[in-house]
């Protein structure tokens, strides 16, 4: 499988390039130039379903589009570029993981997949708040009308259970004060969950979904990173100080180049990592490296963009704040920098490169 790494020519095939183009146009239309907090994400999600994006990785037998994770990544990049901070990565990652375990999937699980294709439901992962109280998590389905939190339950055996977020929500939290969509979840055993898978299939699906969601989140983040870079570049070309537009100043150019350089690599890595996941290589070192690198790249893109804008971007009426809130929540969902780097380090072993 190692040779697949060298297959960077072309990165996307013609169909994927077309998908990307179509996704870009659709997202531009959905956004309608609005700032992120003003986008109607529920309407956007319905449109995603019409376009076949919610079921993109599900087989046609399940009314899906039969696409790959890479296809989903191309869409996620454009959703991010369109400034829509939705639960698309997690929902697609779960549908991918559950579809792989189809023969073992419960009837209720199959019904859930149908709801995902129809755009009615999203499946999300828990983002642990505190290792000491693992049941409490920060989560939320953003976009779909209803959402389920999927988690592993160890009660005698291992089960993968979907809990309706409505029943689980302890309360909404103000991580995003203008759009309080995230929830602190209560003890999940209190709610009626739907068992999706049991035993080793459950554990494997969980692992697949968690890793896949993070790679797709990177795609969404890199897309939104591109948009804030464009915003900064446009501003630098019109804002004049000392008699010149500030894009003339090398230090401004260097900041923009730093953002650009990191996002270029992050995008290549994300595409390749999803391709690797499509090939079932979850152990490949490029996957955690992508997550660590992309996380860093988009964080730097954020604060360097603020450097370029000057005071204006720090005002609440400026859209960069919306990007910051949306992107920070997603950056945190990738794990801490320490966790991301530990995951990369674990893959560095003598000969791993050749494997």
């Amino acid at each position: 499988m190692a040779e697949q790494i060298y297959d960077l020519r072309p990165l996307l095939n013609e169909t994927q390039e077309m998908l990307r183009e179509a996704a870009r146009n659709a997202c531009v239309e959905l956004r309608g130039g609005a700032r992120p907090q003003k986008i109607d994400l529920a309407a956007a999600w319905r449109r995603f379903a019409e376009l076949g994006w919610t079921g993109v990785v599900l087989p046609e037998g399940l009314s899906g589009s039969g696409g790959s994770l890479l296809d989903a990544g191309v869409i996620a990049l454009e959703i991010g570029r369109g400034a829509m901070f939705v639960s698309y990565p997690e929902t697609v990652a779960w549908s991918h993981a559950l579809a792989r375990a189809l023969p073992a999937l419960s009837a209720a699980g199959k019904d859930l997949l149908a709801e995902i294709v129809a755009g009615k439901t999203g499946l999300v992962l828990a983002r642990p708040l505190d290792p000491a109280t693992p049941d409490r998590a920060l989560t939320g389905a953003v976009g779909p009308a209803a959402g389920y939190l999927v988690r592993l339950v160890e009660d005698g055996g291992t089960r993968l259970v979907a809990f309706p977020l409505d029943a689980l929500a302890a309360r909404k939290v103000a991580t995003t004060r203008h759009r309080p969509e995230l929830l602190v979840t209560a003890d999940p055993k209190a709610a009626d969950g739907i068992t999706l898978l049991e035993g080793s299939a459950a554990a494997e699906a969980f692992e697949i979904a968690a890793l896949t969601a993070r790679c797709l989140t990177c795609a969404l983040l890199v897309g939104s990173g591109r948009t804030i870079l464009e915003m900064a570049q446009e501003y630098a070309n019109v804002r004049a100080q000392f008699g010149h537009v500030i894009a003339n100043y090398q230090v401004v150019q260097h900041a923009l180049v730093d953002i650009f350089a990191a996002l270029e690599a992050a995008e290549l890595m994300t595409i390749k990592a999803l391709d690797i996941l499509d090939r079932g290589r979850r152990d490949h070192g490029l996957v955690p490296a992508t997550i660590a690198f992309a996380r860093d790249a988009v964080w730097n893109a954020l604060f360097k963009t603020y450097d370029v804008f000057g005071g204006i971007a720090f005002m609440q009426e400026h859209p960069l704040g919306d990007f910051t809130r949306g992107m920070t929540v997603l950056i945190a969902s990738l794990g801490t920098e320490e966790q991301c780097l530990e995951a990369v380090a674990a893959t560095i072993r003598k000969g791993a490169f050749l494997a």
Partner: protein
Amino acid sequence: MLEGPTLEAEYERFREEAIDFYRSEFRPEWLQTEPDSDAYRALGKDLDNKLIARGWYTLHWPTKYGGKGGDLIQYSILREVAAYFRAPTYGGHGRYIVGPALFEIGTEEQKARHLPRISRGELIICLGFTEPDAGSDLAAMKTRAVDEGGHFRITGTKLYITFGHFANVMLLAARTDPAAPKHKGVSLFLVDLSLPGVNMKPLDCFTGHRIAEMHFDNVRVPKDALVGELNRGFYHMTVALNFERSGMERPAAYLAHLEDMAEYCRASGLWQRARVRQLIGSLAAQVQAWRMISWRVVMLQHRGLVPSWEGSLAQLYRKDINPQFGKAHLEIFGNAGLIERFDPDAILDGRSEWFLREGFNNHGQGGRFVTRNVIARRGMGLPAIRLRDHG
């Protein structure tokens, strides 16, 4: 507890006294209230009044003007200790910046009129320099003050004005000689903000702080509102008004927050992660460096010297540390670090999440790039880069 720089015994005694004061006054609400909210400002007013009663509000001013005749070192010690306790204050640039500038460039009449009112906390002064087209390039300001014999008539817009939404006076820079080169022909005025023609539009910042955009539409100000020499405003801004712009209290507030973070991490078990200890350790080392750079500014001023690039260096430390300081909250607390104040799960009463956003607040008094330019030229004698003019 914060260690003092090496100080003479008399200063050490004063420092102990200041610590005792803030320790006995301390209220948990100081840490729990949203900065810049009405509730916060009420707490600030309450504490300011206690400082005023002790003569500490303007400790370093002569008694004649409502001060206590203390020196700048004492005053800086007080500021640092106050910041360490995160003591609230009502606001205004009077006691730190404008008052000391008036000692230098104000007339006797202006001193007698304004300084006692500042020292009683009655005069809340904001600084009006920045304009929509004059940010880093302040000399591009367009606000005009026209001498009409008995008064000046001021017209223009000032942007991003801290305290502008509740101040009663602005120290405003305006062009008085449009024919003069950019850096000349600017003058300073103390403008009563209740005058007809002054309009204020509040601007909310990403951290919830409120600042303001201020419009001056043919505002007539009396002749004696002029501060300093006519057409020498730019010079005054870079010399007299640079006073106490070291922001010297901030490192103490950041160190206090690092102490809180470390305590939280020890209690929650996060301290077992080496990365957590290293992040906090690395930030503390950098903040200590920043603190020394800031204290040097104070020491120069204490000796009667005029700091220039040294003040910019203190700014640079703040601005280089700030984004890292914000990010550390994400790396240490993860998802929980995203929860805002007022939520029971917010870490350190939401101060953690607030610092994450504050990490992007890097342009007050100029951004990092321009600050580096200033240090390159004034501090290191490096040449200015001249771009050819367009067309």
